[in-house]
């Protein structure tokens, strides 16, 4: 899932321009799960903004299934038309979609979108996937060397791996390649680590330009 967190509230308060009406829109999917932009967070933020920005006559909040799909934005048409500005509590994709759909409206991001990751335990999310477009998890026992290794090495570990920890944060950060090594050892596939992995093709990543996926087989 996409993991995001709310911007510092004073930045949000400062970001909203003069307006007589503000609509706060949440998203019921990823950002609800990571407790950043679901209806609960919308209600709390809307309430605080009403107290912090008394200059804005009307501040209302709502939420939709997903902001990254046009079909769910249709239902917002009336409320958005009535607002001077919209504060989106979705991830970056949602904010942009909302902004495109309601061209001409000021659309602001309430969140900082962080990464694609997993919910490890209550209150703890971790980056798992970089969206590099060239998945190698079959070679590394299911542990991603690009995200779990601070340097994204394909032939790790480097010399900074100690006690199973990464030199970048030896107290908290596991060395990704140490994890891969142990996993491959347990799977009896250590021979995979002796192969010299060639340089990655970064053109499938954002380095190749903004990416698009077109599926002719499912187009209407």
């Amino acid at each position, binding site marked *: 899932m996409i993991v995001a967190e709310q911007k510092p509230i004073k930045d949000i308060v400062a970001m909203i321009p003069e307006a007589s009406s503000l609509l706060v829109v949440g998203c019921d999917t990823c950002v609800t799960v990571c407790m950043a932009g679901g209806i609960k967070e919308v209600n709390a933020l809307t309430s*605080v903004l009403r107290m912090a920005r008394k200059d804005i006559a009307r501040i209302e909040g709502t939420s939709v299934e997903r902001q990254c799909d046009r079909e769910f934005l249709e239902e917002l048409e009336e409320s958005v038309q009535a607002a001077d500005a919209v504060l989106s509590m979705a991830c970056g994709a949602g904010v942009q979609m909302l902004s495109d759909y309601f061209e001409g409206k000021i659309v602001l991001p309430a969140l900082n979108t962080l990464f694609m990751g997993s919910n490890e335990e209550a209150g703890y999310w971790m980056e798992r996937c970089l969206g590099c477009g060239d998945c190698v998890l079959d070679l590394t026992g299911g542990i991603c060397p690009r995200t779990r290794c601070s340097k994204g090495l394909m032939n790790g570990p480097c010399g900074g791996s100690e006690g199973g920890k990464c030199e970048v944060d030896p107290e908290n950060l596991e060395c990704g390649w140490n994890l891969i090594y142990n996993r491959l050892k347990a799977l009896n596939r250590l021979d995979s680590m002796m192969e010299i992995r060639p340089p990655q093709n970064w053109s499938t990543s954002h380095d190749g330009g903004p990416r698009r996926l077109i599926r002719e087989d499912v187009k209407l």
Partner: protein
Amino acid sequence: MKLLLLHCTESGQKVLARLPQIGYRLPSTVRTMELKCTGRINEELLLSSLEDGFDAVLVVGCHRENCRYLDGNLRAERRVQRIARMLADAGVMDKKVDMLLVGPDEGAKLAARIAAFLAPGAEPAAGAETASVPAQSGGKK
């Protein structure tokens, strides 16, 4: 200054009952609302109370280890802290939330805290449990 007191059935209710025994009467600007446990409060309740006209919300619950429902008071504390921080960071100076942990016999401590809320600037003295009962304060601020 209108104050809402959200309290639990255990220490909260009992300490409120103490107040008349130590000669303290709740001012009319203070409303109370009882919940089984302070763990029942959520952010929405705190915020909507403030929006509905209360200037401050004081949550009154049991001491750390004494919650009948084990950790309801701890959860309440975290939620209250979160809202307090949000309000402060957003620059909202005229609304306050706070939580007080008490035992059933700490009437003076509660009275001092309420007085402090109603007359901001007059902080409760240290060791408020044994402080003398403050005068009733009914005026709005």
